[in-house]
C-alpha cells in the first residue's frame, strides 16, 4: 500500500484565487454571521447596564451625574472608534441580510442560474448602503 502524504503544496496552490462566487458568498456569510452573534452578546452585555440604572445606579458623565445606562451608551457613542466599528457592523449586517435573502431564494429554488450575479449584487448593494449611511452614523460624533 502506498502511504498518503500531506498535500499542502497542492491544496494551497491557487485554491483561493480560483474560488467561485458561491464559495466567497459562503465564506462571507459565515464570517458576517459570526460577527453578528458575537455582537449580539456584547450588545446585550452593554444594554444590561439598564438593570442597575433602573434601580437608580448613577455615574459621573461629562461633569454631571447620569444614570449608568445612558452614561455608558452616550460615552461609547462619543468614541470615534465605536462609530467606525458601528459602520462596520452595519456593513456586516447588511451583507448578511442581503446574502441571507439570496440564500433563502436559493433554498426556494429561485434564480439558481443567477446565483453568482445575485452574490455580486449583494456585495455592491452592501457597499452602497454602507456608504450612504455613513453620514447618519457619524453624525454627532465630533
Amino acid at each position, binding site marked *: 500500500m502506498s502511504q498518503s502524504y500531506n498535500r499542502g503544496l497542492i491544496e494551497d496552490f491557487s485554491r483561493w484565487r480560483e474560488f467561485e462566487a458561491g464559495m466567497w458568498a459562503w465564506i462571507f456569510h*459565515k464570517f458576517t*454571521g*459570526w460577527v*453578528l*452573534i458575537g455582537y*449580539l*452578546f456584547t450588545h*446585550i*452585555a452593554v*444594554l*444590561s447596564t*439598564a*438593570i442597575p*440604572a*433602573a*434601580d437608580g445606579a448613577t455615574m459621573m458623565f461629562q461633569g454631571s451625574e447620569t*444614570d449608568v*445606562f*445612558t452614561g455608558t*451608551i*452616550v460615552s461609547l*457613542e*462619543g468614541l470615534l472608534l465605536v462609530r467606525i466599528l*458601528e459602520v462596520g457592523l*452595519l456593513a456586516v*449586517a447588511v451583507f448578511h*441580510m442581503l446574502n*441571507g*435573502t439570496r*440564500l*433563502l431564494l436559493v*433554498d426556494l429554488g429561485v434564480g439558481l442560474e443567477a446565483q453568482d450575479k445575485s452574490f455580486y449584487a449583494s456585495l455592491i448593494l452592501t457597499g452602497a448602503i454602507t456608504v450612504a*449611511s455613513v453620514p*447618519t*452614523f457619524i*453624525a*454627532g*460624533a465630533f
Partner: protein
Amino acid sequence: MAERYSSFNSGGRMWLLQRVTAAFLLIVLAFHFFLLHFVHHADEVSLAASSARMEQLSYYSLMILFLVTATFHGVNGVYNALVNQGLTGTKRTVVKWSLVAASVVLLFQGIRTANAWAGGFPLL
C-alpha cells in the same frame, strides 16, 4: 409506515427553523436598525426613551421575540458551521451544551434588561 416518517429528523427541522428565523430576522432587524439609527440617533439614547418604548406590550414582545430568534439563529448557525467542519463525538456534545448554556445566559440577561426598562412585565 407513515409514523416512521411523521417526525422531523433533526437535520431537517433545524434547517427549516434556520430559514424561518432568517426570514423573520430580515424584517425585524431592518426595523431595528431603522428605528435606532435613523429615526432616533445613536447619540440620543437615554434610559427614559428606551423605557418609554419598552413599556408598550407590542414593542416589548417584538423585542423578546427578536432576541429569541436571533439567539437561536446565531447559535444554531455557529453550531452548524462547526458540525459541517467535521465536529463529532464528545467534542460535539460539549460544544452543543456550551452553546445552549450561553444562549440561556443571553436570553436571561436580555429579558432582565427589557424588564428593567419596562419596569417589570409591561401591562399595557
